[in-house]
């Protein structure tokens, strides 16, 4: 049974009770909100952890419980939560779930039940992860990369339970991400509405679609390494554990390869960077086009760049491993691929700038975040060129330069898009606008604050300040001025961290008391703004699916009064609009 019958005739499971409508919901919109709220919740925990770490670094000894173990545990959990449980879950499970069916004109994901399971597995993964705070020994403190042998050797914090719970939680998360990803990919490929060709899809869908494919192909490597490390830890196998002396004792393992773990981890880990970045690229393209009232520059090139980045990201992984002792010829290969991947990425940045060029730029809150993203991503991307070269990377590796680089490029930049996206689509989700003043305040504190935090870190890195030290006092090679800078960074970080409460308050307040938004407050052309109801009801489109006649970027089309043409407007309707506009102009002249 092909699409036509399946989409039009298949009965939707209309939810009956409160439980099936809001808790065990199979509606992609409810699942998206569940995903987003859960992700934001763990995100708050990760922000608090980073605050604790910064207090320790800026003012060592202030927090009595913050010893070396607690610091490493906080650092590990901060990194893992931010990368996996916040950004990946929010972009794919949150934005992906909400936007894909609405943007391609489907009634729901193709398999709503599997979609629901995806969320509940994600929640289970979060619960397992957070439970490691309460077990003997606490969560693992091996760093978010979990490198063996250290991560499962005696002396590492959380070696008793924390590492096991972390690996199990990751495995559960991968099951969740697979169930979600299968849905997103199949929906985009097979369940688009009439007239919705692939090259009429908004770039948001392209970004999320490509990221979902990458997730399906990259997460297996993490899954396998998690299974193998669990065996090493629980069954005493030696996949990753070499023979070594730990705490004066010869350990029971021998013959394993720690480098194998690094290869498996980064075969997942580098695509993971783009799993987070590609949805951000897509969403930001739509924000810029809508709020600059101009069609996206070079749409097809933008699509091909997304595909090229997705493919190339699978052959750059070992640039994380230049100092691991692998064969130097590998370094040559991976440096070359790393620099090649900068080409499609730079293409996207140029196209965003050219979209802005002579556009009618509305400095709304989502647009501010989108503009901030371009700048931040550019800065982070340029330092990536430094680190992609073996000879520059070796002195800089494991310094604060690296910390600054990845926080700029895959920490701050995607988070800015998350904020921009939430400010942009919140009116569709709730029917109300977020408060503008609070939003602008939140934006300026976050944007300027993150620069004040991460810019000095580049300098600290050049000074040779290593990362992953829990205190920087009394090292001859670190000057005293570095400590003053650390204190400065900490103060700003705390301000930025606390200012996120503005955003959370804005979300909660505006959801109930915000200004009513109407169905299309930004005057956007893409399909999700053309739903018959706002917020969209179950089934999204009422009795008949929409018919799409054009791409998602018809802004400021000459000859008509309205400065955007929705995707649902046909050629005949456009002609009518044109004549109507001409008519009013003649009328204007007469009066």
């Amino acid at each position, binding site marked *: 049974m092909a699409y036509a019958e399946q989409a039009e005739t298949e009965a939707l499971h209309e939810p009956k009770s409160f439980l099936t409508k809001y808790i065990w919901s199979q509606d992609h919109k409810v699942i998206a909100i569940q995903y987003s709220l859960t992700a934001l919740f763990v995100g708050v925990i990760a922000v608090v952890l980073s605050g604790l770490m910064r207090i320790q670094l800026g003012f060592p000894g202030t927090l009595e419980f913050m010893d070396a173990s607690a610091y490493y545990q906080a650092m590990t959990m901060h990194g893992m939560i931010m990368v996996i449980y916040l950004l990946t879950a929010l972009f794919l499970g949150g934005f992906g779930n909400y936007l894909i069916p609405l943007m391609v004109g489907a009634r729901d994901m193709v398999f709503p039940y599997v979609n629901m399971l995806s969320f509940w597995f994600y929640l289970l993964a979060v619960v397992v992860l957070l439970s490691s705070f309460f077990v003997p020994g606490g969560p693992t403190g091996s760093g978010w990369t979990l490198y063996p042998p250290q991560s499962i050797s005696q002396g590492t914090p959380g070696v008793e339970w924390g590492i096991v719970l972390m690996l199990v939680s990751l495995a559960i998360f991968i099951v969740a991400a697979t169930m979600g990803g299968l849905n997103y990919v199949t929906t985009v490929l*097979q369940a688009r509405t009439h007239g*919705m060709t692939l090259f009429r899809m908004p770039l948001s869908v392209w970004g999320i679609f490509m990221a979902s494919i990458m997730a399906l192909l990259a997460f*297996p490597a993490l899954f396998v*390494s998690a299974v193998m490390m669990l065996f090493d830890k629980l069954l*005493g196998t*030696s996949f990753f554990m070499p023979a070594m002396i730990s705490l004066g004792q010869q350990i029971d393992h021998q013959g394993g390869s720690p480098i194998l773990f690094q290869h498996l981890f980064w075969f997942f880990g580098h695509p993971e960077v783009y799993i987070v970045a590609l949805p951000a690229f897509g969403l930001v393209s739509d924000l810029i086009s809508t709020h600059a009232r101009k*069609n996206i520059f070079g749409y097809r090139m933008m699509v091909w760049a997304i595909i090229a980045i997705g493919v190339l990201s699978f052959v750059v992984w070992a640039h994380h491993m230049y100092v691991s002792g692998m064969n130097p010829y590998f370094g040559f290969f991976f440096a070359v691929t790393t620099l090649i991947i900068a080409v499609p990425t730079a293409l996207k940045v140029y196209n965003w700038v050219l979209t802005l060029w002579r556009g009618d730029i509305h400095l709304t809150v989502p647009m501010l975040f989108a503009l901030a993203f371009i700048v931040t991503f550019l800065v982070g991307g340029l330092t990536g060129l430094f680190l992609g070269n073996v000879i520059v990377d070796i002195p800089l590796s494991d310094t604060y330069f690296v910390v600054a680089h990845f926080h700029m490029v895959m920490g701050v930049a995607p988070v800015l898009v998350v904020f921009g996206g939430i400010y942009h689509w919140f009116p569709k989700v709730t029917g109300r606008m977020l408060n503008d003043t609070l939003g602008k305040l939140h934006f300026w504190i976050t944007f300027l604050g993150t620069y004040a935090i991460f810019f000095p870190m580049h300098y600290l890195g050049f000074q040779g300040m290593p990362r992953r030290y829990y205190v920087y006092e009394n090292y001859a090679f670190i000057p005293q001025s570095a400590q003053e800078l650390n204190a400065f960074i900490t103060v700003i970080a705390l301000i930025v961290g606390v200012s996120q409460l503005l955003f959370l308050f804005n979300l909660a307040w505006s959801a109930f008391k915000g200004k009513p938004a109407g169905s299309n407050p930004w005057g956007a052309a893409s399909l999700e703004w053309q739903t018959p109801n706002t917020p969209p009801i179950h089934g999204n489109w009422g009795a008949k699916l929409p018919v799409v006649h054009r791409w998602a970027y018809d802004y400021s089309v000459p000859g008509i009064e309205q400065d955007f043409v929705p995707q649902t407007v046909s050629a005949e309707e456009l002609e009518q609009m044109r004549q109507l506009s001409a008519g009013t102009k003649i009328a204007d002249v007469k009066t």
Partner: protein
Amino acid sequence: MASHPLAPGESSSSNPPDSPPEPGWQGIASDWASDREVFKQVPWGKAMMWIFLLSDTFIFTCFLTGYMSVRMTITTAWPNPSEVFALTIAGKEIPLILIAIMTFVLISSSGTMAMAVNFAYRRDRAKTAALMLATAALGVAFVGMQAFEWTKLIAEGVRPWGNPMGAAQFGASFFMITGFHGLHVSIGALYLSIVALKVMRGDYERSGNYQNVEIAGLYWHFVDLVWVFIFAFFYLW
């Protein structure tokens, strides 16, 4: 379709349906990108199964490359699979005999599965269900022989953390890879039995669509194919 102002870069994907197809790569790209479906007339479940199998391929590939890289880098000797997996039958030691039988059984089960799909599209419910159950039974037989093999090795002292024949990673890789594959076969046998039950009950007769038999078949052939690679890389190397 009347001509209307197209946005830049929109020409080829919105061609009127009666226009001649574009040649070469352009044509392939616009075929794929065309209206509503990339894979024409392919149901959602089938597309999803293919994508899942692609993802699962990566899991098995990572397991096998992980195992191979460990095997290449260790310094201790790797046990000889021909000797470890030999059975003594009627006083003669025959190398890999059990594995050969297992492989034969699993590949035969792909044959019965293919026949089941054929009969399903002819709407021959009894034969479809019987062949699917036969496939599941062959799968169970495969897992049973695997259990026998595990028992024999465990009795000989092979453990995940060590074995008397040589490198400790031999047992670790063996139990991990065959265990993960055996899990796939077991789930597959269960999955096939459920679909067979539904065929017998006439569920698909009412909806008039037997795609689910074929989708289950895709999974089964995949599990079979993976075994061929495990056989080659683990037992024959």
